[in-house]
């Protein structure tokens, strides 16, 4: 080997050594930066929460705002403990929560199933869509909450009126998404399936429905929230049990802490439902390539 060759071989070796070290340190640096950002984010969130809750408590303690009308964090926690230990006016707190969950879930399931069935049917059969389209638009234009009153007249104060109200709220969201999803199917995929020998039913099952599923699942997030709204508003309008009734009672007795306490419970419910939904969505749409937004999310997390 000549000196020149030796020299270049050496420099090449050291260069690759540098490269390895660089790759390692870059990864470590990126990891460190990500961890730092996460810690800062959580710290910021905690501080925000402490400021709001603490500020609220202090303002009521020094009587700048009236705790009777605005409630106070300590009062809310006390009310919750009281409910958990001694129950509400209508039985135990857990029973109220469970009733509301049950109404919301039943309404959600009924609304999703009917929404998907009608959405896919109208999307697949042009004639049906042309005939029923205007009526669906009219019903959709109504503020659907007012239907709650009718349902209570029809179905009474029991659970069924709330289930139906929740189902109606969910139905329209899911219906329009399923319909749009079916209309949005790639014509190429349908043509390909036809040539491969698929019957109309097979095309719906293997091509149209899975394709619309992306749209339908996107609507499930919103509609899960709607089902909880439906149940609670229904209870609000007239019920014998449930969180909505608890709020209505607290309102009638000027119990601000009670209203806030029930709100807190509902908030926790809604958030857990949201988390479950996200899990389900990930499972159902695992075939999808990660979108750029999701990649960005992963980088932040």
């Amino acid at each position, binding site marked *: 080997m000549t000196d020149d060759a030796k020299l270049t071989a050496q420099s090449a070796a050291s260069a690759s050594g540098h490269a390895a070290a660089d790759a390692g340190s870059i990864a470590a640096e990126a990891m460190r930066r990500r961890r730092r950002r996460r810690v800062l984010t959580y710290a910021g969130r905690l501080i925000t929460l402490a400021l709001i809750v603490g500020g609220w408590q202090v303002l009521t303690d020094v009587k700048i705002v009236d705790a009777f009308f605005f409630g106070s964090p300590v009062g809310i926690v006390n009310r919750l403990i009281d409910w958990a230990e001694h129950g509400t006016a209508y039985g135990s707190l857990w029973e109220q929560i469970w009733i509301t969950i049950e109404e919301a879930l039943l309404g959600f399931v009924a609304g999703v199933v009917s929404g998907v069935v009608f959405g896919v049917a109208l999307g697949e059969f042009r004639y049906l869509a042309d005939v029923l389209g205007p009526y669906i638009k009219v019903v959709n234009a109504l503020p659907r909450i007012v239907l709650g009153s009718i349902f209570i007249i029809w179905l009474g104060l029991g659970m069924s009126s709330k289930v139906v109200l929740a189902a109606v709220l969910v139905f329209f969201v899911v219906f329009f998404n399923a319909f749009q999803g079916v209309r949005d199917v790639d014509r190429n995929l349908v*043509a390909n399936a036809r040539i491969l020998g698929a019957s109309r039913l097979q095309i719906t099952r293997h091509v149209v429905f899975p394709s619309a599923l992306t749209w339908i699942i996107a609507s499930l997030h919103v509609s899960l929230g709607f089902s909880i709204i439906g149940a609670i508003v229904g209870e609000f309008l007239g019920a014998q049990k449930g969180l909505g009734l608890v709020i209505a009672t607290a309102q009638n007795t000027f119990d601000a802490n009670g209203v806030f306490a029930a709100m807190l419970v509902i908030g926790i419910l809604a958030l857990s439902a949201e988390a479950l939904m996200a899990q389900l969505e990930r499972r159902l749409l695992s075939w999808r*390539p990660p979108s750029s937004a999701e990649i960005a999310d992963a980088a932040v997390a």
Partner: protein
Amino acid sequence: MGVALAVGPVTGRTPGSIELLGVTKRFLTPSGASMTALRDVDMVIAPGQFCAVVGPTGCGKSTTLTLVSGLDRPSAGTVRVGGQPVEGIPKGVGFVFQNDALLPWKTVLGNVLLGPMFRGLPRKEAEARGREWLQVVGLADFASHHPHQLSGGMRKRVSLAAALINEPSILLMDEPFGALDVQTKAIMSNELLALWEQTRPSVIFVTHDLEEAIGLADRVVVMTAGPGTVKAVYDIDLPRPRGAVQEIRFEHRFLELHQQIWESLRSEVGRAYARTAAIPGAVGGQA
């Protein structure tokens, strides 16, 4: 040699023969006007023949395929497949689209076994056949991947397997390699020829690429700028098996044919271009 305009109709019921007789196709544009995509097209493809269709953009090449596949009906004239007039999707037709029409939510294997499954084969058998075909196109290790995880060339191979698994006697291909890069396209052309030589379906291969057309086909049909009609038909007498498509390009006979056909295609490309670019006087000009 060279120009051999439409041969007489194929007689009897040969599975795999394709005939278009006086076929015209008009579309209604969104504004309500009628647009003629194909006018008086006569085309006959014998069983087992590999026929490439070239022509400028918008000359109705793809429309021809949708008519043969039964996805659409002609406004006038008859289309016969295997001696039978086309009504609905004819039996034994396979289609490879330009954008691979794979279902993104199914795995590679799931996509390949669609054909047998739609035709009512039991799941187990369909799966076994699907795996066989994945082996043939060299993707056995990717059976449980989803399409978005594959490269363009691999997706194309999946599409080919999905189309060929039904053992079509007629394979329609609509610019199947148009979206691939040049190297991948060359590899895929060779693989297509190898597969074709095994099962020998009749092929209509629509393309913009004249070299691709001559390299692959027994016969090249040149179409006029829209409304499309058959301008000329060239028999490609290069010996088979052709071997590597990218090497045959330098053979003397290939160049001769290329020159001949290009001569005919050039004026059409010029006309189509002049129309889209709205350059008066460029008709038949230098393309």
